[in-house]
């Protein structure tokens, strides 16, 4: 039987606020245990939550970014369960009326010929508080509880089960990761847990409409693990069904060491969260003017920027898409253009050499040793004919390794191309004289011979001759 995997994601993004969602305690990462656990974080008797306006603003930003409905009225609810890192015995979350409703996001899956676009529906996004952390090994048989993180604002973003492969799920997660950073609501730091994905996976016979029983892979904090976990889980579910077994709904954890998923022990019992509206918090009202105020602060969104790149710079759809894959990439590209570079050349360089280098060295574009201004100065030298494309590659390599700026390197390496017509004519004459056979072949109709002659001329000039001029002069001399 042919199987189809169905995937939906729930992503917890930590919002970039200075203080917790319901108290004035700091959210800074990495402090000594429990030094950022105030009376509210500790759930001391008698304390009450007061909502952070910045968290609400972040939710509105996200809603606007995915073209979602932003609820004029949303409600905070209590999700009741006991866990030592959950000090109140309930998590304040949103249940029936979330702050952000239905929206969507378009993702690009794969690359090259096989690349395709797909729209993923966002079901909702809601505000909630993070839990604390359990630290193991403090004492034999004991766990230590650190509540510094308890109460950190989260936006939980939930999709419809719209993804059909691990690749699609990862593409969505990456795109979302880029987007939340793009709009400045989340630092995207996956190691520190700022962006965590829960992935719901089920399988069904291809063509079937009915959803299979799903298992939820909890807390994936790397795209690589997500890929591995989904692939393992999919295989496991298919094998289980093919062996005549059934899938039990479960929460599972991914073990990066074994590459396997296993059901969590502590969640064996059926959860009964007893949600009800939190009586300590009144309904959250968001007006049109609140939304307009946030809109005014929003950066240009990737979709809009993509369309603008196509229209304004004549970039291809694929290129515009790639350049708007992350805010940092887009900013870099725009800065390069603003520094005087031709847009198409800039696009080629950013997606070509820069991206290849970054990939090879596992670096972010913000860490690029060649700044956007430096790249623009290099491209300008191509534009004004100072160097050839080939020479530019050499200059780029040298710039990357910190040998200096473009002009310095061009000078020191003597890469300035020869554009003096007389000098090039002399070289061409020499080449024609030395390669009579090729000239014969060309005249007999062998087009390739022409290219070979260009190559010889370039070689003779040690790559410094302006190739366009070489072409032109050669054509003239051959009477072509």
């Amino acid at each position, binding site marked *: 039987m042919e199987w189809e995997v169905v995937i939906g994601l729930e992503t917890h993004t930590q919002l970039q*606020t*200075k*203080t917790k969602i319901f*108290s*004035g*305690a*700091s959210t800074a990462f990495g402090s*000594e*245990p*429990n*030094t*950022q*656990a*105030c*009376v509210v974080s*500790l759930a*001391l008797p008698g304390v009450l939550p*007061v*909502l*952070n*306006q*910045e*968290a*609400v603003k972040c939710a509105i930003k996200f809603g606007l970014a995915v073209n979602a409905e932003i609820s004029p*009225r949303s409600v905070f609810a209590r999700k009741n369960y*006991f*866990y*030592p*890192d959950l000090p109140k015995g309930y998590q304040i979350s949103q249940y029936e009326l979330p702050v952000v409703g239905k929206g969507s996001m378009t993702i690009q899956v794969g690359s090259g010929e096989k690349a395709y676009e797909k729209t993923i529906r966002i079901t909702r996004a809601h505000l909630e508080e993070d839990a604390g952390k*359990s*630290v*193991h090994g*403090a*004492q034999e*048989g*004991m*766990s*230590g*509880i*650190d*509540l510094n993180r308890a109460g950190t604002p989260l936006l939980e973003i939930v999709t419809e089960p719209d993804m059909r492969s691990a690749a699609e799920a990862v593409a969505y997660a990456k795109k979302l990761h880029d987007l939340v950073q793009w709009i400045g609501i989340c630092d995207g730091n996956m190691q520190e847990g700022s962006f965590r994905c829960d992935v719901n996976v089920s399988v069904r016979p291809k063509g079937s409409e009915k959803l299979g029983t799903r298992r939820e892979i909890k807390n994936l904090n790397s795209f690589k693990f997500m890929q591995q976990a989904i692939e393992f889980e999919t295989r496991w579910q298919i094998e289980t069904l093919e062996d005549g077994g059934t899938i039990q709904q479960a929460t599972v*954890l991914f073990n990066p060491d074994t590459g396997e998923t296993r059901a*969590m*022990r*502590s969640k064996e019992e059926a959860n*009964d969260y*007893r949600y009800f*509206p939190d*009586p300590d*918090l*009144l*309904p*959250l*009202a968001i007006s049109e003017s609140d939304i307009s105020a946030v809109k005014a602060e929003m950066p240009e969104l990737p979709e809009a920027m993509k369309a603008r790149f196509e229209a304004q710079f004549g970039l291809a759809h694929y290129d515009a898409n790639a350049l708007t894959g992350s805010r940092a990439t887009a900013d870099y590209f725009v800065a390069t253009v603003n520094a005087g570079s031709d847009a198409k050349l800039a696009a080629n360089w950013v997606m070509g050499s820069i991206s290849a280098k970054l990939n090879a060295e596992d670096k972010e574009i913000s860490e690029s040793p060649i700044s956007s201004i430096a790249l623009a100065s290099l491209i300008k030298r191509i534009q004004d004919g100072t160097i050839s494309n080939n020479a530019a590659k050499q200059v780029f390599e040298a710039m990357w390794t910190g040998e200096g700026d473009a002009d310095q390197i061009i000078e020191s390496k003597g890469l300035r191309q020869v554009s003096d017509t007389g000098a090039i004519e002399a070289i061409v004459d020499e080449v024609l004289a030395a390669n009579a056979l090729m000239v014969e072949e060309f005249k007999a109709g062998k087009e390739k011979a022409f290219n070979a002659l260009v190559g010889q001329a370039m070689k003779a000039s040690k790559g410094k001759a302006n190739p366009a001029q070489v072409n032109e002069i050669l054509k003239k001399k051959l009477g072509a």
Partner: protein
Amino acid sequence: MSLNSADIKRIAHLARIEVNDTEAEATLSKLTGILGLIEQMQAVDTTGIVPMSHSQDVTQRLREDVVTETNQRELFQSIAPSVEEGLYLVPKVIE
């Protein structure tokens, strides 16, 4: 909706309160009485009535995102049952 003592145990477990069999039986009779009292509500037709969570029709006031809390770990942990190196100690949490 009538309860039995297995229900009591299930609810007590959800609420993390240990009850033995005798307690469950005693609790059962009391809870059944209370639920009988509550059951009066079912006679009322509430179709279309908006549930009332708060007595005032006001909305959430928002707080500025400014740090106001300072570290008081020592004070707060002075009333804790068990702490070590700034952490609250509990029996091992199993995932």
